């Protein structure tokens, strides 16, 4: 078992190197000994190498199906398709923990590859925080969740991967989420470094802007992909159930969003210094909390990992992080006061404050809801669980208020704007909103909240489209460029602004998809014999033929499928084949849904059961606008790339003059 020894040895050495790096970087900075900081930097490159080695060792063990190793035995088998071996790497607690450490060390190394510029003084402390976090994860792996632990006796076959996790989106969902969690460590590390050094001006925010944006966007995409997986694999026609595991990744995303907004305020107006630092810490803490939720057994969830003592390690780490941040913030309370002057209540500053309060309120409420069964059990001895209805009742209004602010904020000026001026600039949006509402009423939509929600989304979208268009039209006029050139030039000259607007537009598409799919879902159950057909909504479903207990994967899978032709107005639209299979490694059957997506609606077909004579029960679910969520996700990626892409020339127009000079001052010191 040479590979297990290599892997475990690498983790032990990584722990030692990370501990050394955290001590050496602090000592080096305190005692002005650059050679110690350099040694810490080298140690952090070493941890990246060692954790890569451990990851490769685990992957090799999985690929060679070495069933003597407990993790391999529990997650793969001789008959598992090779592509899913990769998913097995992060299907269990030990592997996902190793993945997190690996990502964190790689991102740290990438950060350190760049020579220090603006962060000459902050970097040693940021390194210490990153190194200490690495040490925490390495300690977990070495002490209690060792992926290289051996089985008590030799094994000829493994348990294989849960069939629910055998899905292309499940291969990429965990690495994306863990990458996001690892990325959030960097803004947090620089936030603490800013507190230690007292350099709490916008310098650190400007420096970590791209990392924070990458972390935020990656987490959003990870959440969306998780939703897509649930939609495709779980067979209930929904993509979000307010389950604790889903909530626990959504909460840091909301707080991270508040962080990005408060960073903008601090960069522009030197306000909200304490907000920025504490939101960076809070987001990081909540990523750790997310893992704690799924690992500790604290909260009942259908997806949770088995209970374990690992929760106490997480609690300890979170407590320490919180104590250090609060202690430093108290010590730096004078420096945390920014120089910016508050403006009027009708000002962009106040609008941003409201934005942050709404994000934090939503995050806090979801957190409270997630912990609600635990609280009520402690207080009343009966665990009460919130239903999705409870969540929707506060998240709906709060979400729509945020959407309203997306449409309003760009029109409100800094410091002060008069009500008349605001009204003059907002009338087009209001008209579009009202027309949208009228059209919906005309087409028979009767639910007040649906009409209101779409009107608000239309209002906000109009603002963004007008803003996008204004810059392009101005270029077409002044530079006499055609539409495409003007658009490209406008974006190129102000990537940050256009990227931000594209991201907001992406969120609005997602919100529209959520409204449509939540408002109208049709669910019909039909039982058909072979050759029979059924009318469902505008569709005709013709049940053509079936497959019963066809052996696959060497007899480890029995495939049941029903072939259904879908017609509308006599025209064939699709051939769909939902499945309901038996797998040797799990009890009961597992559904594979069939899906036909259009911009208007999804036709979602579940084979509820099938008998040997072909009698089949189908669950047919028609949900409007689901695809808008995934389109929004793609636009989110594009917007982020535009916003974060390095400017072609060093003198980027995106750098506000004030901050650039701050950066230079810091670098020159």
């Amino acid at each position: 078992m040479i590979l297990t020894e290599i892997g475990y040895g690498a983790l032990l050495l990584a722990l030692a190197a990370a501990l050394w790096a955290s001590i050496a970087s602090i000592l080096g900075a305190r005692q002005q000994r650059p050679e110690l900081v350099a040694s810490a930097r080298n140690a952090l490159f070493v941890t990246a190498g060692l954790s890569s080695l451990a990851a490769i060792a685990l992957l090799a063990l999985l690929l060679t199906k070495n069933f003597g190793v407990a993790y391999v035995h529990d997650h793969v088998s001789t008959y598992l398709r090779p592509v899913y071996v990769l998913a097995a790497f992060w299907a269990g607690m030990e592997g996902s923990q190793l993945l997190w450490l690996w990502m964190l060390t790689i991102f740290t190394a990438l950060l350190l590859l760049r020579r220090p510029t603006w962060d000459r003084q902050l970097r040693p402390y940021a390194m210490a925080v990153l190194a200490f976090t690495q040490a925490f994860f390495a300690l977990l792996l070495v002490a209690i969740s060792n992926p290289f632990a051996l089985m008590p006796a030799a094994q000829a076959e493994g348990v294989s991967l849960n069939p629910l996790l055998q899905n292309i989106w499940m291969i990429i969902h965990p690495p994306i989420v863990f990458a996001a969690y690892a990325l959030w460590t960097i803004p947090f590390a620089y936030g603490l470094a800013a507190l230690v050094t007292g350099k709490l001006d916008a310098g650190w925010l400007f420096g970590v802007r791209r990392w924070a944006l990458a972390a935020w966007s990656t987490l959003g995409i990870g959440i969306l992909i998780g939703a897509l997986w649930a939609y495709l694999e779980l067979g209930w026609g929904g993509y979000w159930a307010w389950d604790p595991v889903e909530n626990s990744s959504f909460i840091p995303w909301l707080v991270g969003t508040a962080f990005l907004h408060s960073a903008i305020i601090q960069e522009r107006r030197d306000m909200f210094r304490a907000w920025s630092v504490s939101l960076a810490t809070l987001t990081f803490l909540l990523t750790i909390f997310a893992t704690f939720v799924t690992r500790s057994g604290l909260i009942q969830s259908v997806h949770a990992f088995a209970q374990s003592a690992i929760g106490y390690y997480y609690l300890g780490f979170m407590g320490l992080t919180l104590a250090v941040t609060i202690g430093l913030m108290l010590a730096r309370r004078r420096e945390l006061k920014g120089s910016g002057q508050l403006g009027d209540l009708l000002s962009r500053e106040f609008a941003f404050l409201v934005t942050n309060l709404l994000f934090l309120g939503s995050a806090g409420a979801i957190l409270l809801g997630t912990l609600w069964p635990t609280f009520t059990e402690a207080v009343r001895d009966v665990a009460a669980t919130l239903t999705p209805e409870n969540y929707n009742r506060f998240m709906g209004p709060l979400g729509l208020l945020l959407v309203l602010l997306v449409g309003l904020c760009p029109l409100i000026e800094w410091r002060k704007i008069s009500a008349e001026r605001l009204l003059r600039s907002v009338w087009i949006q209001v008209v579009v909103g009202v027309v949208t509402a009228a059209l919906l009423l005309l087409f028979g939509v009767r639910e007040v909240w649906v009409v209101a929600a779409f009107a608000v989304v239309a209002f906000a979208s109009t603002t963004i489209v007008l803003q996008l268009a204004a810059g392009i039209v101005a270029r077409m006029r002044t530079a006499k460029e055609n539409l495409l050139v003007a658009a490209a030039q406008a974006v190129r000259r102000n990537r940050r602004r256009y990227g931000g607007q594209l991201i907001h537009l992406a969120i609005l598409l997602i919100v529209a998809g959520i409204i449509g799919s939540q408002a109208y879902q049709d669910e019909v159950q039909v039982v058909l014999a072979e050759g029979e057909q059924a009318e469902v909504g505008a569709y005709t479903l013709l049940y053509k033929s079936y497959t019963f207990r066809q052996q696959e994967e060497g007899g480890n899978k029995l495939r049941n499928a029903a072939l259904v032709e879908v017609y509308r107005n006599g025209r064939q639209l699709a051939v769909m084949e939902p499945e309901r299979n038996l797998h040797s490694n799990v009890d009961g059957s597992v559904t594979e849904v069939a899906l036909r997506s259009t911009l208007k609606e999804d036709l979602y077909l579940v084979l509820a059961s099938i008998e040997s004579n072909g009698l089949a029960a189908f669950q047919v679910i028609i949900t409007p606008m689901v695809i808008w969520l995934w389109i929004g996700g793609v636009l989110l990626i594009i917007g982020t790339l535009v916003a974060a892409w390095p400017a072609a020339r060093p003198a980027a127009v995106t750098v506000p003059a004030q901050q650039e000079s701050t950066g230079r001052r810091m670098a020159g010191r």
Partner: protein
Amino acid sequence: MSSRMKFVIGGLVVVIVVVALIATSFSGSTSEYLTIGEVKALGPDQTQNSRVAGKIVSDSVEWDTAAFHLAFEIEDETGRLPISYNGPKPDMMADAVEAVAIGKYDPAKQVFTADELLMKCPSKYEEKQ
């Protein structure tokens, strides 16, 4: 009034509105986790759904394809409970699996009618014989 005061008061108003909204959302329509014994003690006038968890009793699962109906029993230390569900059999449903049913109890028929069924499927599996 100084702009600092304005911000504090304005912020407080927003906070109060948000907290009030959340507080009203949390009341009502939550579902309580009950044992089977507690479910069986429920009266006929339940306004909220209950959640009840238990192991699926061996050989109790009956699926009727033509009626699209699922019936089974769960048990815990406080007793057994027949469950009725008009929907597809959940994935990975099998004997001895822990099931969570969300719905209402009918004391007359002594049946728990579930709106929603969840199977607790841990990510790790016991080794199979």
